[in-house]
C-alpha cells in the first residue's frame, strides 16, 4: 500500500494540473471572447471539419449499400399523395361529367358526388399535412447521430468505429465542457443581474444590465456550440417595437437575445427558470405573467401595450405560433400580438438539420431530456434573417396583418407557409372549420336562391 502513495500523489497532481489547464483554456478561448463579443473563428473551423467527415460517411454508406444490394433512404418527399390544387367545385363537376353526362346547370344531388368526399377522406387518412409537421424532419444524409437515421444498419467496420468515436467525443468531451459553460453562464446571469438590480435607476444601470445580459447569452451560445449567421443586421428591432419570430425550440430565445437587447415575455415558472426570471427582472423590465393572468387576454394586451408605449423600454420578443414547430413550415400566428399596434420587426430563424435536430417535440421529450440531446449533438447551426419592419395598414385587421408577417417570414426562411393552427398538436379542429366544407357543397347543390322547382 505504501508503494502506491507516490503514484497516488502523481495521479492527483496530474489531474489537478489538467483541470487547471482546461479551465484556463476555457476562460481564454471561450468566456473572454464572449464578454467582449469577439470570436476566434474556432467554431467555423469545427463546422467545416464536421461537414467533410459527414460527406465521407455518407459516401461510405452509399457504397456499402450498393455492394450489399439494399435500397437506401428515400429522398425527402412531401408525402405519397399527389395532391393537385383543385377546388371542390371543379372536382365534382369532373366526376359528374364523366358520369351520367347530365347537364351541369341543374343543381341535383348525384350518387357519384360521394366519391369526391370518400376519396379525400381516404387520402387524408393515408397521409396528412399537419401531423407530418409535428415530427422531426428526416434527413437525406447521415450525420453520425443514430437518432436521426431510421435506416441505420451495420454497413462497415470503419463506419462503425467512426460512429463509436463520435459517441465518445460527444458524450465524454463535449458534454461536460458544455455543461460547465452553461453552468457558468447561468450563474453569471443570476448574480450579475441581481447585483445590477441594486443600482439606482438610470443610464448606468441600463448600460450595465444590457451588457450583463448579452455576455451571459453569448456564453450560453457557446455552451451549445451554436454557429449562427446573422443577415441584414441593420433591420434589428428598436425600442418600442415588437420582435416576432418563428418558433422551433426554446433555444430560439438564446439565439436572438445574444445579438440584441430584448425584453422577454412569458409565464413565470417555478424552479431554476423561476429563479432566473426573477433575477432578470431586477435589472431591467421584462414582462412576466403569473399563471392565472395568462388566460386573461385583455390584461395581457394591456401590459404589453404599456410596455411598448414607453420608448425607454426594450423591444419585446414574442413567438406568435404558440408552440414549437419542426422548422419546415410556419403555422398560424395568434393575433394577440398584432392587435397592439406597434411596429413589428419580423425575424426568420432556420436551423440546419445536418448538425443536430433542434426541434423540441414537447409531447415526446421533457425540457431536461431535450437540453441533453442538444448538448450531445455536434453543433447547432442556424441562420437568422432580420426582415424590414412592418406596420398594420388601415384597411387590414389583426388576422390579415398576422398572415402577412407570417408569409414574409416563411418566404425568407424557405419554410412552407401553412394556414393551420399550431395548437392542433394538442387540441382538435374547431367546429367552424368542419362546417365550411358542408356549406360549400350544399351551396353547390341547392344554390343560394330559394326558388328552385323540386320534383
Amino acid at each position, binding site marked *: 500500500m505504501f508503494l502506491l502513495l507516490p503514484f497516488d500523489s502523481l495521479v492527483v497532481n496530474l489531474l489537478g494540473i489538467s483541470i487547471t489547464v482546461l479551465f484556463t483554456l476555457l476562460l481564454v478561448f471561450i468566456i473572454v471572447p464572449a464578454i467582449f463579443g469577439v470570436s476566434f473563428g474556432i467554431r467555423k473551423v469545427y463546422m467545416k471539419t464536421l461537414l467533410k467527415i459527414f460527406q465521407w460517411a455518407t459516401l461510405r454508406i452509399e457504397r456499402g*449499400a450498393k455492394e450489399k444490394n439494399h435500397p437506401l433512404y428515400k429522398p425527402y418527399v412531401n408525402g405519397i*399523395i399527389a395532391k393537385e390544387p383543385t377546388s371542390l367545385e371543379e372536382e365534382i363537376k369532373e366526376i359528374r361529367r364523366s358520369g351520367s353526362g347530365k347537364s351541369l346547370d341543374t343543381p341535383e344531388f348525384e350518387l357519384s358526388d360521394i366519391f369526391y368526399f370518400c376519396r379525400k377522406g381516404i387520402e387524408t387518412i393515408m397521409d396528412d399535412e399537419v401531423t407530418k409537421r409535428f415530427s422531426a424532419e428526416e434527413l437525406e444524409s447521415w450525420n453520425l447521430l443514430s437518432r436521426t437515421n431510421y435506416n441505420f444498419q451495420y454497413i462497415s467496420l470503419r463506419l462503425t468505429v467512426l460512429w463509436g468515436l463520435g459517441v465518445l467525443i460527444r458524450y465524454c468531451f463535449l458534454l461536460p465542457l458544455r455543461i460547465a459553460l452553461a453552468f457558468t453562464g447561468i450563474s453569471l446571469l443570476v448574480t450579475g443581474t441581481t447585483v445590477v438590480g441594486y443600482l439606482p435607476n438610470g443610464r448606468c444601470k441600463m448600460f450595465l444590465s444590457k451588457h450583463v445580459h448579452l455576455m451571459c447569452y453569448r456564453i450560453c451560445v457557446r455552451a451549445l456550440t451554436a454557429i449562427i449567421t446573422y443577415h441584414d443586421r441593420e433591420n434589428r428591432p428598436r425600442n418600442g417595437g415588437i420582435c416576432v419570430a418563428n418558433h422551433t425550440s426554446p433555444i430560439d430565445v438564446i439565439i436572438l437575445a445574444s445579438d440584441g437587447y430584448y425584453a422577454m415575455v412569458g409565464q413565470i415558472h417555478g424552479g431554476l427558470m423561476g429563479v432566473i426570471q426573477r433575477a432578470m427582472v431586477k435589472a431591467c423590465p421584462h414582462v412576466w405573467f403569473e399563471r392565472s393572468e395568462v388566460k386573461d387576454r385583455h390584461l395581457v394586451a394591456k401590459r404589453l401595450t404599456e410596455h411598448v408605449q414607453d420608448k425607454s423600454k426594450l423591444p419585446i420578443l414574442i413567438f406568435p405560433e404558440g408552440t414549437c414547430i419542426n422548422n419546415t413550415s410556419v403555422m398560424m400566428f395568434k393575433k394577440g400580438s398584432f392587435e397592439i399596434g406597434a411596429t413589428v420587426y419580423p425575424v426568420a430563424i432556420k436551423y440546419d438539420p445536418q448538425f443536430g435536430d433542434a426541434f423540441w417535440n414537447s409531447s415526446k421529450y421533457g425540457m431536461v431530456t431535450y437540453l441533453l440531446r442538444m448538448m450531445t449533438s455536434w453543433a447547432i447551426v442556424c441562420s437568422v434573417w432580420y426582415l424590414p419592419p412592418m406596420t398594420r395598414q388601415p384597411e387590414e385587421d389583426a388576422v390579415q396583418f398576422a398572415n402577412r408577417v407570417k408569409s414574409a417570414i416563411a418566404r425568407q426562411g424557405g419554410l412552407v407557409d401553412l394556414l393551420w393552427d399550431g395548437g392542433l398538436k394538442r387540441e382538435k379542429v374547431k367546429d367552424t372549420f*368542419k362546417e365550411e366544407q358542408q356549406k360549400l*357543397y350544399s351551396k353547390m347543390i*341547392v344554390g343560394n336562391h330559394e326558388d328552385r322547382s323540386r320534383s
Partner: protein
Amino acid sequence: MGSAHSVPAEMRELADRTGFTSEQIEHLHRRFKQLSQDQLTIRKENFDNIPDLEFNPIRGKIVHAFFDKRNLRQESDGLADEINFEDFLTIMSYFRPIEMNMDEEQLDRFRKEKLKFLFHMYDSDHDGKITLQEYRNVVEELLSGNPHLEKESARSIADGAMMEAASICVGQMGPDQVYEGITFDDFLKMWQGIDIETKMHVRFLNVDTIAHCY
C-alpha cells in the same frame, strides 16, 4: 444496429394480396404506427387525431367503413372493435389505382369491389338494401352544414333521387307498388356504362429510391 435488410416474406405476401408496392406498404405501415400510437391495432378513437379528416362531412361513414366486417372480407357481419395493419391495408386496397396490365375480367372484378365498398357505405343497417331512410341520411350528412337549407329540402332532394333510382331499376311502378330499396344488383345497374374506376382511387406519387441496385 439492425439485421441485414431484406424484404420480409410477409411483406411480399401482403403486396401480392393487396396490390400495393413494397414502398407504399412501408409508408402505410409508418402511417399505421403513427395513427395507432405504436400499438398493434387501431380503434375508432385513433381516427380523431387527423385534423384534415374533420373537414369531411361524411367522416363518420368513412371511419365506420374501416371497421365494417363486410369490407374486411370476413365471413361474419357487424362491426369490428379494432383492426390490425392487414385489415387497414385491405380497406386501402379498395382505393388502388387501375394498373395498365389488367384484363377485362380483373377490371370488372375491381369495379365491383369498389362499388360494393360504396354500397356498404350507404347501407348502414347491413340488410343488403339501401332504403329511402338510409339515402336521406347520407344526403343530410353531406348538406347539414348549410344554414339556409331546412331539413325538408334535404329530404325532398333525397326523395327525388330515390324515385329516379327506382325508375332506372324497376321501370314503371304501379300505384300500389312500394319500392323497397336499392339492392346491390340495382346499384350496379345504375352505374352501368359509367366509368367510376378512374374517380375512386388515391393518386400515389412515384417514390423512387436513390440507389437502384438490382
